[in-house]
């Protein structure tokens, strides 16, 4: 593998600086954001690099669990931040986080103990990247699906209530909206599985090839990851939508939009 020197990275940074200068000249108002985001990339990735280095040096279940929880909480916060109207109180955070915990953690542990079969099973070199990829994708799916569910329920509250008035159960009254939300949560991973290899070379596989793995080994890993992601996203979105559509109603099948916060600007 060819290691990158500081000069190599500085050259790449120079490209970003050039783009920022161009944006400043054209008065696009992007240069500030671009520079801040670029700086964040450097700092955050260097930090996580150091963390991973320390983690790999001391293989310890406690440390792996710790960083997994930090990742989960960050993903949970991100899901919450992407909601136009989120659930009030603890639910706003807990719903997405709980659904991600159930699906991502279960699937990661399953993959580590059976498919990848590392020794020990929590070997951070495999556990942390795997969990990271699963969490990242499940997070996007759940955020999309929950946002779709709550905003559509808000827009169509008159229709939902009309169906309740006619004697529909809460599940029937929101069935179509839930189906739509499920679809929008699953679409990204279905699309990327369908386009994999034709339109795009998936990032993980590209990384492994760059690092010197034989292409077919990298492909096998990519297939495994994509299957894990689609299952993880599917279970996670299902769990989140189940919790959320129950939470939108009370036990007397009344639509309770007062459990949602107002729109975010």
């Amino acid at each position, binding site marked *: 593998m060819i290691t990158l020197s500081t000069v190599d990275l500085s050259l790449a940074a120079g490209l970003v600086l050039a783009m920022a200068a161009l944006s400043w000249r054209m008065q696009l108002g992007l240069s500030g954001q671009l520079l801040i985001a670029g700086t964040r990339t450097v700092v955050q990735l260097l930090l996580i690099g150091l963390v991973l280095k320390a983690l790999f040096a001391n293989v310890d279940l406690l440390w792996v669990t710790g960083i997994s929880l930090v990742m989960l909480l960050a993903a949970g916060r991100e899901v919450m931040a992407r909601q136009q109207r989120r659930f009030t109180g603890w639910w706003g955070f807990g719903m997405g986080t709980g659904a991600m915990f159930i699906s991502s953690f279960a699937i990661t542990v399953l993959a580590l103990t059976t498919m990848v079969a590392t020794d020990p099973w929590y070997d951070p070199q495999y556990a942390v990247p795997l969990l990271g990829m699963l969490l990242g994708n499940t997070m996007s799916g759940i955020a999309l699906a929950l946002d779709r569910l709550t905003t559509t329920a808000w827009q169509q509250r008159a229709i939902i209530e009309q169906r309740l008035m006619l*004697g529909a159960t809460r599940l029937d009254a929101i069935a179509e909206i839930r189906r739509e939300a499920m679809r929008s949560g699953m679409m990204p991973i279905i699309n990327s599985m369908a386009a994999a290899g034709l339109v795009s070379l998936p990032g993980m596989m590209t990384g492994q090839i760059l690092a010197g793995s034989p292409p077919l080994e990298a492909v096998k890993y990519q297939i495994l990851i994509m299957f894990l992601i689609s299952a993880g996203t599917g279970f996670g979105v299902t769990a989140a939508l189940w919790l959320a559509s129950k939470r939108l109603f009370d036990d007397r099948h*009344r639509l309770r939009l007062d459990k949602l916060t107002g729109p975010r600007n």
Partner: protein
Amino acid sequence: MVELEEAHMSALNVIDLRTHGRGPYSLSIAPGECVSLRGDSGSGKSLLLRAITDLDPHDGQVLLDDISRTQFTAPQWRKQVALLPAESQWWQDEVGAHFSAEACPWLEPLGFGAETMHWQVSRLSSGEKQRLALARILMNKPRILLLDEPTASLDNDNVLAVEKLIEKYRCDTAAAVLWVSHDAQQAARVGDRHLQLTTDGIREYTP
């Protein structure tokens, strides 16, 4: 003794109902009786009807044929104690998709035919929607009809057709009707008794 008990029996009994900071409201309607309800706009007529059909959280008791609301599941309750809202909602393309497969006997008296089931919802007038919403809710064979301005967007002939149909339904099934109307003449025409709603209670009046 038996007669006395029957006289006491009410189809709908609302006791000390409070909703959205209003009330307490109490009222009772006998089987086959039609009661009109009036009140200034903003006095909470629609909120009262929503609470009776159990769409909004509320305090107090509501009984159907002397059986407490809590003995029913919410969907069962709403089929029996049916609310016809002032503005109906339609979520499928065709009218018929909102009805069950069994033939609807209420189309003809409301001026529709079997072909109406294939009409596009997007092309219905507000009056047609209002009459079809009545036909739709009657398909649940409710014991109680809570009507929120059911003839507000209808012309004279259709107002009379709706009034006639509801009276026939009431006589055939001994259903009880609570009818919100702005129109004093209509209230006098359809109501056996008349109620006035204020933010803190209900009182009976004679027109």
